[in-house]
């Protein structure tokens, strides 16, 4: 009886795995399709990858995405680590509102963050939209993710270590640099990788705050999906998948608990 139930369970599980993978398999497959349109299979070719690497607009978008992701992830990791530490250690007074501030951007639908930042940049700062506006937006929604991961990691630490450090005469910065940081480093790095992935992948918020001449890969893909649907889109999708896959595998290896803990 138990065996049959397990068999059914695994059949269902496999069906869901198939559901997850088949559409993407189609995308990857058609990236080698020798046809202008994604209508039917004509023949095998790698020319779309060649077109991709000659496409300056696309390469520019990729470069922008990478630059933004690196910078945003770095700053978000710094601020997020600070927030995570603050949330874990100090919960009195004004700082009671910190969890709300940090976690709400994570919970909100992205469109709300996007339009409110657009409004803010235009009405209050009169900022010309561009790299800076995208950066700020990406940092805002990434801080929460890093903070959650770091806080979870800190919560799992034995507090007596900090006491011991203090008893031995270490100041706060020393304690951080030589005790705390090494211990939470996997979580910090996982947070960095997650912010990086989120930034590279972001579409909705970037859509509202991107400006002139600064396209990111998702925005470029969006405009290609709407207009120029040659298999070049499939090619860039396949490559992007390979990249984020590598990053997530790395993150999973560095801090498997932290990654699950963020849920």
């Amino acid at each position, binding site marked *: *009886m138990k065996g049959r139930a397990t068999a059914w*369970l*695994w059949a*269902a*599980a496999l069906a*869901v*795995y198939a559901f997850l*993978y088949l*559409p*993407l398999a*189609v995308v990857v497959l*058609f990236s080698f399709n020798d046809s202008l349109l*994604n*209508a039917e299979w004509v023949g095998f070719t790698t020319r779309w990858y060649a077109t991709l690497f000659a496409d300056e607009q696309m390469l520019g978008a990729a470069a922008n995405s990478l630059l933004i992701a690196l910078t945003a992830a770095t700053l978000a990791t710094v601020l997020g680590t*600070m*927030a995570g530490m*603050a949330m874990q*250690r100090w919960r009195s007074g004004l*700082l009671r509102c*910190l969890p709300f*501030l*940090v976690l*709400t951007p994570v*919970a*909100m*639908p*992205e*469109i*709300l*963050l996007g339009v*409110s930042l*657009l*409004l*803010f940049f*235009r*009405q*209050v700062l009169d900022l010309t939209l561009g790299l800076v506006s995208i950066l*700020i937006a990406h*940092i*805002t929604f990434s*801080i929460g993710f890093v903070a959650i991961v770091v806080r979870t990691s800190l919560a799992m630490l034995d*507090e*007596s270590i900090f*006491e011991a450090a*203090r008893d031995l005469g270490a*100041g*706060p910065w020393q304690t951080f640099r030589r005790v705390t940081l090494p211990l939470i480093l996997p979580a910090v790095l996982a947070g960095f990788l997650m912010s990086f992935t989120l930034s590279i*992948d972001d*579409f*909705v918020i970037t859509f*509202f705050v991107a400006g002139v001449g600064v396209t990111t890969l*998702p925005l470029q*893909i969006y405009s290609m*999906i709407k207009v120029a649907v040659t298999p070049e889109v499939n090619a860039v*999708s396949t490559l*992007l*998948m390979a990249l984020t896959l590598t990053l*997530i595998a790395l993150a*999973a290896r560095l801090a498997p608990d932290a990654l*699950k803990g963020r849920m």
Partner: protein
Amino acid sequence: MTERRSARHAGGPGESLTRWLVSLPPTLFLLVFFLAPALLMLGASFREPGDFGGLAPARQDGQWNLSLETYRFFFGDWIYAEIFLRSFLVAAATTLLCLVLAYPLALAIARSARRHRDLLVLLVILPFASNFLIRIYAWIIVLGPADLLYSPFAVIAGMVYVHLPFMILPLYTNLEKHDPALLEAAQDLGADTWTRFRRITLPLSLPGIWAGSALVFIPVLGMFAIPELLGGTGDILVGNLIKEQFLESRDWPLGATLSILLTIAVLLLAGISAWAGRPRRSSP
């Protein structure tokens, strides 16, 4: 070691300074770039649209140029509230479908041999590694020839596909922690597979269900790309309406009003979900 916990909070002379140095930067950043824009949005919903778009000045010739006009417009005709209703229904359908699809998978992984689990979880995350537009695009390719594009079916399919991992992972995290001894004891007492599931596994997994549901329901409410790329003329949701006000109709006050109403809806839902999923005394 718990007696020394209070000593941790008391701290030395550097503690107070450290507290400010560490907590101030992120707090300030979020106050400026998250809270302020949100408050600005609230204010914008009471303003008049500018002649060419944007917002008209709040004060003109010494007079406040504010009105409840957009709220009157929204509540003046039932069809606008209907769009919220439709978005809720789509979100609910998506959440339910995600639950139905995610549960067997999460359960299967949680019950599998420990050494396989990380790999199986990674296999779940992999498709998630693709950009969400690509996942939508995959459905455009698949549904086009099948004549199913630009329909409610396409929208739901896209929504479920994009959000499924958000349901699988919290469910799995919860299910993994269930103590197998409970199930063995039940079996010894004569309970069959279905009863064991219904009375032990399912109730214990409720916090995971709530967490996953919140992670699916709330983002779906705000989506616009999926209805835009996969949906038909009758499938637009709140997100599309908001986007149109800002990037096409240039009616920012109306867009702000819609955003505020959506925010309130989301906060209410998040509150309900947090309350429902709160740790009870009997949970693992």
